[in-house]
């Protein structure tokens, strides 16, 4: 009896999902015009590929679970840590003003390190060099929260990475990774996100693979997920040995994929499947 009820419930959920998906499929996906020489004509945020319910969750700051991360980090921003007796606030003041636009321009060239660094790395550089505090581990809640909080200060601002000058070989490297087929399933990022975006793939619509919502709250993980974890997941799922988070390979890929979404408004914390 119980299993029959469960079966019925599943059937109802499946039917509802189909209805939602049909709706999403028919809906016009709004995007922005890409600059000349770009791979896409229209650059479209992953938001446009999601269901009405998922988009509603993102649209309401009080309902969006990603805001728990923002709130946690807002407290940590003021907290003194490390032997220098400093907090983020000691140097940067109010994040709302000092961090505005910072996250939209990452990854960014670092003159001292002679390489691009992303937001996670920048935060840890601050911690180790200025605060003399321990760096946060990648995927730790603390690092993902702070990354989300800083990027949130750029919400609504256009993604604006620089790809010229010393960044240019990194851009090319990221591009090469994007178009390389990996794993037993022999798929490149481009196989799905360039050639087949907008199509239905099993239970989901393939997006352009844009990064403007990261770190993003993922419904299936029930937490905010940083970009390199998502890269890892994609590679793992095509049965490939993923590159390491914060590796040069993923840094280059982060830069290149950010360029593919140039001009899209930052949505952090976005809500995705």
């Amino acid at each position, binding site marked *: 009896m119980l299993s029959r009820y469960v079966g019925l419930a599943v059937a109802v959920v499946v039917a509802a999902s189909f209805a939602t998906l049909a709706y999403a499929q028919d809906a016009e996906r709004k995007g922005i015009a890409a600059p000349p020489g770009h791979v896409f004509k229209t650059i479209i945020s992953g938001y446009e590929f999601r269901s009405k319910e998922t988009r509603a969750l993102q649209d309401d700051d009080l309902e969006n679970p990603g805001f728990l991360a923002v709130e946690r980090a807002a407290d940590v921003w003021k907290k003194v840590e490390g032997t220098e007796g400093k907090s983020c606030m000691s140097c940067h003041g109010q994040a709302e003003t000092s961090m505005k636009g910072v996250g939209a321009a990452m990854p960014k060239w670092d003159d001292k390190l002679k390489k691009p660094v992303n937001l996670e790395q920048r935060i840890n550089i601050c911690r180790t060099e200025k605060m003399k505090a321990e760096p946060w581990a990648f995927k730790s809640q603390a690092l993902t929260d702070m990354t989300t909080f800083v990027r949130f200060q750029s919400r609504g601002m256009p993604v604006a990475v620089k790809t010229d000058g010393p960044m240019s070989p990194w851009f090319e490297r990221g591009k090469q990774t994007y178009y390389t087929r990996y*794993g*037993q*399933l022999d798929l490149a990022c481009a196989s799905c996100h360039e050639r*087949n975006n907008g199509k*239905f793939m*099993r*239970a989901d619509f393939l997006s352009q693979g844009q990064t403007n919502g990261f770190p993003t709250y993922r419904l*299936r993980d029930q937490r905010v997920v940083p970009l390199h974890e998502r890269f890892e997941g994609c590679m793992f799922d095509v049965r490939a040995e993923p590159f390491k988070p914060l590796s040069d390979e993923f840094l280059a890929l982060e830069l290149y994929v950010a360029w593919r979404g140039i001009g899209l408004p930052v949505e952090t914390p976005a809500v995705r499947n």
Partner: protein
Amino acid sequence: MRRSLAAAFALCLSAAGACAQEPAKTPITLDIANDSLPKSLTGAPGSAAAGKKVFLTRTLGNCLACHQVTSLKSEEFHGEFGPSLDGVAGRYTEAQLRLIVADPKRIFTDTVMPAFFKNEGLSRVRPEFVGKSILTAAQVEDVIAFLKTLN
């Protein structure tokens, strides 16, 4: 709705070790003639019923992730990546279907479809899959037998 694109691609997450594969390390060679594989990979015909199961199983063929089949309408979530397989038995010979499943890039050079019977020449394959094909020879033959029922 939680079932994501990643899940669709995750053919072999929980059952990674349980997936039957070809014996590791021996490179698979395909006996290609006229853009097709005339000979059964096992020397025997496959089973359409077993093939349907392989076709539907996400950790094996997972064919519906990308293709649609009207006769399988009761199954949820048919993908749009690849063409409908309705009437595929009339469009290709058995020998052609065998090569398309085994290594489709030999015919459609630009396709995104994975090779289901290939175990080398791939990049950064996860250690547990190195030297292994997605399907065994017998599973490929079963899928071919099932595809032949799609008239």
